[in-house]
Structures are given as C-alpha cells and as structure tokens.
C-alpha cells in the first residue's frame, strides 16, 4: 500500500504509432529540449513480443518516460522486460526512471556504464537547469545488462538483435534489429532532417555506416527524424554531410588553417539541407577538427 502511494500521478499516454506490426514509435520534435516538450526530442519506442515488451530509448525526462509507459499499457499488459538505451545522451536515457518499478534489465553497449558514470551527473544537472520542474523524477539509471558485440533478446516468438558498434556517433552506440518486421532502430547512428551531431568519431561513424548498409532491413527508425522504408538509401544524406565535413576540414588542416577558419567555412554547402544546422554544425567542426588534426 505504501508503494502504491509512491507511484506518480497518471501521465497522459504518448501518441505513439505502430510503424510495423508490434513496433511502436513516438517521433521526437526537431528542436532543443525544453520544459514544454519535457526533453522529448528523440525518437523513442517499444516492441511487443508474445511474452514481454522491450523499450528502445526511454525519452528525455522521467515525465516523458511515464508517458511512454502509459502508451505501452494502452497496447499491452505484458511485462516490460527490457529498457534498451542506444547511447548515453539525455534525450535517450532520462526516461529510464519511469520504468524502475517494472524491474526490467536496462540494456546498453559495454562502454555505456563508463559513459553514464562520466557524464550522467553532468547531464542531469544540465537537464534540471534546462527543464526546471519538468525534469522532476529524472535520474541516472545505469545499465544492468551490457552488450560487447551482439546480444539477442527474446520477447517471446520475437528476437531483437542488439549490435554494439565501434566509435561513431558516440563511443558506445547500440542498434536494435527486429527480425520479425525487418525494422532497424539505428539510434543516433542515423539522423534525418535534423543535422547529425558528432560526439564520438567522424571517421569511425563513416565506417560504421558502411557496416550498417549490409543490414537487410525493411525499414529504419532513425534516432531523430522520420522512419523510412528507403533503406539503405536513407543513409545517403547523412553520409554526404559527414564526408563533406571530413573532406573540407582535412583541406583546411592541409592548408595550415585554424579551427576558427574551419568553423567559418566547412560544410556551408549543406546548410540548407538540415534543420538546426547553425546550432550544431560549428560544434561538429570543432569536434571533428580535433580528431582529424592527429592524422
């Protein structure tokens, strides 16, 4: 009875849609995390098997996580066995707290615990500043089950194949493939519409993208942007941006140019092709510059 009192007030279910049989998605807004959107800027979803449910990214705050939880309960009463985090970024993990009572395994890349330890407190502080009271209940929940290379999770007549990637968007990206429907959850290994963010390795990301191309998916759910059946062509836009970033930074470095010069010029041709370009491209240039200058 005392436990029941601790359960937060019922949240409004997130408006999820079924993108494939048993695969549900809430598509995040293209913008910055705010109190109004409760940090809900990433794509988050869940997959329902015969025996259990797996969440794939839990959202940008405990509040959004609770709304996802409600959305799941509108679809099924099956136990939520797994909460998978594709990587450490706040918009993908801060809904974890809403699932603690289900006692699922929190699943991530083998390097996720380290990233959570290094960044969790910093991200939580940032979330509180940015969202204020809308961040309430959010906490850092580290993984309880990690993936070094591959791991299959059986939801009951439905196996999710988790793949731990080498350094790309971050140094601990995890993708999830649902063989039943051929749906690939790419996490932030794929951005659509919104400009990609480099927080791992630009060169590594390009390598990982060519590995992703080998997956014979019928549709892909990006970490940000609209899901599509246009696979692997859905990678092309991102690949041309990342290649341009790489090639133009290399040219600046080769000519003895500085980071500031690179920020001012690199990837300008892609400016109109992406949302939030001016907010993130300069930072990508800085990040990639510090990687490429060691070549």
């Amino acid at each position: 009875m005392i436990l029941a009192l601790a359960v937060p007030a019922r949240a409004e279910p997130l408006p999820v849609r079924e993108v494939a049989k048993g695969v549900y998605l809430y598509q995040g807004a293209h913008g910055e995390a705010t109190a109004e959107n409760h940090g809900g800027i990433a794509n988050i979803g869940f997959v329902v098997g015969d025996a259990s449910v797996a969440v794939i990214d839990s959202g940008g705050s405990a509040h959004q996580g609770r709304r996802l939880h409600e959305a799941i309960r509108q679809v099924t009463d099956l136990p939520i066995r797994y909460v998978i985090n594709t990587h450490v970024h706040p918009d993908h993990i801060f809904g974890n707290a809403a699932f603690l009572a289900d006692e699922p395994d929190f699943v991530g890349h083998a390097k996720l615990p380290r990233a959570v330890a290094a960044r969790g407190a910093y991200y939580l502080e940032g979330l509180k500043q940015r969202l204020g009271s809308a961040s309430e209940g959010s906490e850092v929940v580290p993984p309880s089950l990690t993936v070094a290379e591959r791991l299959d999770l059986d939801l009951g007549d439905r196996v999710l194949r988790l793949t731990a990637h080498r350094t790309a968007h971050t140094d601990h990206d995890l993708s999830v493939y649902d063989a039943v429907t051929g749906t690939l959850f790419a996490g932030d290994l794929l951005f659509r519409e919104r400009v990609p963010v480099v927080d791992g390795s630009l060169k590594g990301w390009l390598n990982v993208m060519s590995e992703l191309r080998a997956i014979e998916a019928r549709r892909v759910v990006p970490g940000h942007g609209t899901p599509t059946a246009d696979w692997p062509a859905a990678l092309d836009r991102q690949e041309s941006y990342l290649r341009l970033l790489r090639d133009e930074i290399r040219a600046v470095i080769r000519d003895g140019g500085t980071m500031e010069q690179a920020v001012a010029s690199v990837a300008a041709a892609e400016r109109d092709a992406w949302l939030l370009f001016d907010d993130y491209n300069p930072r990508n240039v800085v990040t990639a510059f510090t990687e490429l200058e060691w070549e």
Partner: protein
Amino acid sequence: MTRLAVPHFTLRDLWLSTFAAGLALAYGAAVVAAAEDDPWPDLREALFEDRQIQPGDGVIRLEAPYRAYDAAIVPITLAAEMPQTPERYIKTITLIIDNNPAPVAAVFTMTPHSGTAKISTRVRINAYTNVRAVAETSDGMLYMATKFVKASGGCSAPASKDQDKAMARLGRMKLKQSTPVRLGQPNEAQLLISHPNYSGLQMDQVTRHYIPAYFVQDVTISYGNETIMTVEGAISLSEDPSFHFSFVPEGPGALTVEVRDTEDAVFTRSWPVEPEAGS
C-alpha cells in the same frame, strides 16, 4: 625549473587556492555568480598588485568567439601588435578567464626569438566571462586586451569523446610546420600534445568521484639553444593542448619540446627544421 609566473603566485598556488571555490562553481550557478560578483578586482590585485595596466591597443590583441561552439574547446588567439625586437619585446602574456575555477589559464613567456609572438590555444570556459590577455613588455609595462565570451560548463564537461583512444595516445606530440620554412623570418608552427588535461571537475568513469586534476604544467619550446616560448599551463587549457606559435630560425636546427605534467611525467621530442635560405 624557474617559475616565471606572476608576482607572489605561481599558477599552481593560484589553482589550489581557487580549487575549492571551483567545485561550487562547477555547474550553472557560476553563470549567476558571474553576473553578481566581478572577480576581476581581486584577481587583478593578486596577479599584478597596484601596477598600472594600459589598454592593449598596439601591443596585444585578443581574439575569441563571442559565443563558444564547444565550451570545452574554445579557440583563443593572443597576437602581439608590436614586433619582437631585442630592444623591446613582449616578455609574458597571461591568459585569464575571470569566471573559471582557476582563472589563470596559462602564462606564456617569450623572447626576441618568438617571431611574431602570435599564440593560439584552446581553453575551457565554465561560465559567461571576460577573457583577458595581459602582456608584459621587456621594459616592465603591462597592457591588457579583453573579450567577453558566452560559454558554460567547459571545465566540468566530460572528458574525451573516445576515451580509449585518448589514453592510448597520452604524451604523444605532433608538430605542424608551415612550409617552406624561411630563414631569418617568423615561421608559424602548431604543437599538439595528447594529454587528458583533467580539470579536477570531471567525474571519474568508474568511481563516480571527481577525477583528480592532472594536466600539462610546463611546456618549453626551443630552437637550437634558444628558448622560443615557455607555457605554464593549468586546468583551463583544453584536453590535448594545442599551441600555435612562431619562431625565427637563423639556420638549420631542431625544434625541441619538453612537456612536464602535474605528475612529473616528462615528454620530449625534437623535429628537424630545414629552412630555405634566401627565401
């Protein structure tokens, strides 16, 4: 090694004295504090006592972005606006970030061999702040250039985007020389030092305690027997410290760099320089 720093304070002293305050400042509270309390009068007194500081025009110029793209990697350029001659040259440039936990980011010591005395580096910025370059000329005069920079969280921002790679590379150095190298003229070069430069305000990966500060403390760059520049560094310098500098070779020789960090690890490396005569 002789401490060439500022009167009464070595950088390390200053760092230690401000470290406790730094912990409190590690997060966004710093932004608020910055607006209310101007740390400059106290800093000024600690660093330069009652000496007169003149405007930097014609002596020292500071370039910094108004808004940082990545608060942990903010590019800063300190450029002499006067020639470095044996008669009169910029002897030191103190780079100060008012609202950082350790405000003195670095002290650069130069000589008449320092070419154009133009230095670029990258710093962490923890809160909206004034950034200052105070140049002391060889005749003992002080000049200051100031820029306001909007950034926050740079000192506590998590270390390295690819942590395994960063540690595997510790102590490695890279020198990029502009070519051709011209005899008797200022030539530009960039020194990169692979080092985590832990600020003491970043969380440990495993223990979830603050990683102790561990940073590049002294850098000495020489050409032949002449010291080109020394850098006394602190926690505000970004991970993998980078220094653009210039030097004037009077003949063939080698650029030698010696780096010492706060755990007394010493890294040295030399690169041959082959100037083109008469160019």
